[in-house]
């Protein structure tokens, strides 16, 4: 995507061998042997092999792979819960694998917060005390850390639960505490290790949405591990696909779906690739609000504000689509004391018929950020498609 963004973490040539003779295993690897052969010959497990990727400042990077792909190992190498065998992990100029014990502690405190699959909350501490943990470790003064933790809990919607113990909360709420503990710490990178995998599907969707909302507010650099393609497509700015400890493909969700790097990725997204038969109609959502051609600019602007949107589709009384009114244009119309909005519409948006293949919609999104209008033959507005819905629909098809 945009390689000009500042890089937060740079991973280069990272390998990890589990066993006592890592050198031997890496030699065989360099001779072109794969994981099973190396295991057979040396008894060493090649957990990760020559991994390189960047994490950009402020992005949500998903590392995705099936079990055994090395994704959990990889995330633990980032903050060195697991020691690496070779390679570099550079964060703000510091190479994590070579840090001394003290520098490593300091680096973990400053740079990394972590959210765990099974929450890893401390059962002997209250919700509040759990949220304070990272700050307490760093020696932040009590009153200060209390107020920071309190705010973090508020952010994740757990106000009023401060004095409860983790075992009194549901799974979803427990993970909110885990998230609050990470947010309160205000480290520069958030590591999420299968953070939502232990939650049931409905709550999981909610948490994904909330994470996206938080993310749009805070722009925190996040590395998110998952084995679930649906989740990866839904939340990832970019996805790193791992297989048997190697990177198979790095790209945006769209790139992964539309340009799979090899057969493995293709098989992986096979179900998802039903986009050929999926159409705009299947991902379409009803329009929440439209303006009429007879409306004045104030009415139109008011509707946009009500629904927190910055543009609105305008139809006539037969629901025929006339154009799109942007908030800016509406304001100008008000200033110009215009009676109606029809003179201020733009045609600069995309409209598609209901049977448009879903995969064609990707390209359209990169051009314009407006929802795509779905219209029938009489140009009547049937609904809109937003970016997230396309991915959702594809992912759901993949699960079936």
């Amino acid at each position, binding site marked *: 995507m945009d390689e000009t963004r500042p890089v937060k973490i740079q991973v280069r040539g990272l390998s990890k061998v589990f066993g006592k003779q890592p050198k031997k295993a890496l030699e065989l690897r360099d001779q072109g042997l794969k994981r099973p052969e190396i295991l057979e010959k040396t008894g060493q497990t090649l957990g990760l092999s020559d991994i390189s990727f960047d994490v950009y400042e402020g992005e949500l990077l998903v590392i995705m792979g099936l079990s055994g792909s090395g994704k959990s190992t990889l995330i*633990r190498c980032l*903050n060195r*819960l697991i020691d690496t065998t070779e390679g570099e992990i550079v964060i703000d100029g510091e190479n994590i694998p070579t840090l001394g014990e003290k520098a490593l*502690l*300091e*680096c*973990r*405190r400053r740079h*990394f*917060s*972590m959210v*765990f699959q*099974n929450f*890893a909350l*401390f*059962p*002997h501490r209250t919700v509040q005390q759990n949220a304070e*943990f*990272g700050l*307490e*470790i*760093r020696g932040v003064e009590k009153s200060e850390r209390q107020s920071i933790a309190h705010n973090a809990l508020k952010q994740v919607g757990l106000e009023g639960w401060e004095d409860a113990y983790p075992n009194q909360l549901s799974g979803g709420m427990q993970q909110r505490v885990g998230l609050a503990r990470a947010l309160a*710490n205000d480290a520069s990178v958030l*590591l999420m290790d299968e953070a939502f995998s232990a939650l049931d599907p409905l709550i999981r969707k909610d948490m994904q949405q909330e994470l996206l909302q938080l993310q749009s507010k805070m722009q925190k650099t996040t590395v998110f591990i998952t084995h679930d393609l649906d989740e990866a497509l839904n939340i990832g700015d970019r996805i790193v696909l791992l297989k048997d400890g190697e990177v198979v493909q790095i790209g945006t969700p769209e790139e992964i779906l539309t340009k799979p790097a090899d057969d493995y990725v293709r098989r992986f997204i096979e179900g998802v690739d039903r986009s050929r038969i999926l159409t705009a109609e299947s991902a379409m959502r009803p329009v929440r609000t439209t303006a009429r051609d007879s409306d004045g600019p104030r009415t139109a602007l008011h509707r946009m504000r009500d629904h927190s949107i910055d543009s609105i589709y305008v139809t006539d009384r037969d629901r025929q689509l006339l154009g799109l009114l942007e908030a800016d244009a509406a304001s100008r119309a008000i200033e110009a004391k215009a009676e109606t909005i029809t003179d201020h519409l733009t045609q600069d948006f995309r409209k598609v018929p209901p049977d448009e293949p879903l995969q064609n919609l990707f390209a359209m999104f990169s051009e314009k950020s407006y929802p795509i209008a779905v219209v029938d033959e009489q140009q009547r507005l049937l609904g809109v498609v937003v970016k997230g819905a396309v991915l959702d629909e594809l992912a759901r098809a993949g699960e079936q």
Partner: protein
Amino acid sequence: MEITRIPLGSWIESGLTWLTSEYSVVTRGISRVTQAGINSLNDGLMWLPEWALLAIIALLCWKLASTRLAIGAVAGLALIWNLGLWNPMIETLTLVVIATLVAVVIALPVGIAAALSERLYRVIMPVLDFMQTMPAFVYLIPAIPFFGIGSVSAIFATVIFSMPPAIRFTTLGIRQVPTELIEAADAYGATRGQKLFKVQLPLSLPTVMAGINQTIMLALSMVVIAAMIGADGLGSEVWRAIQRLRPGDGFEAGIAVVILAMLLDRLTQSLRKSRRS
């Protein structure tokens, strides 16, 4: 050819003799301090009138555990008082308390160290097996040259015999802390000390308390046996009853031991449970 018998016993004896003569200053020092501790605790408990101590224990049971235990404690202690075994009971209690204190003070750091170091763990576990399976009486024999006949030797043997569960449970408790929680502490940059005091120890506390409970029980049984080397208390009542062939007296003292044991067990267990909730 006849195979020479390995003179294991005489080696051990000469080793012990060497220890006693070389370290007599140390053993005498320990002996004096311990004896002073025993005497002052004994005197303190005996200074209190029977009814006052009874009331204190009942109150403790009621506060920490339940009304039921308080009633049981009153009934049991009243029976001991009535049988005229009050003073021996106090002497036994003193020995148990002091032996347990010493055992726990040694066991906690050793248990923690064994939990954190795999190498130490491998050294300590067989030693604990040895300490626990060696017949308890055997400890009484070297105790005498070290500390002479009497209560100090009894404490020495009791500490050795009763310490292993406290070490084992401490080690177990710390090792049982889920790895995910250790990872969480590490991920947030906790030092070893922070990890130990903020995560590992608090989470292992119920298990550690179970170990201390076991230590108390073992200490009580050993203190009774230690009557054979001149320890005062309920054990010496039993011992006297055996020598005079008076089963009635023996059972009376035995019942007093059982009452004391149940009381200590229930009390420490409730301490463990109340911590957990």
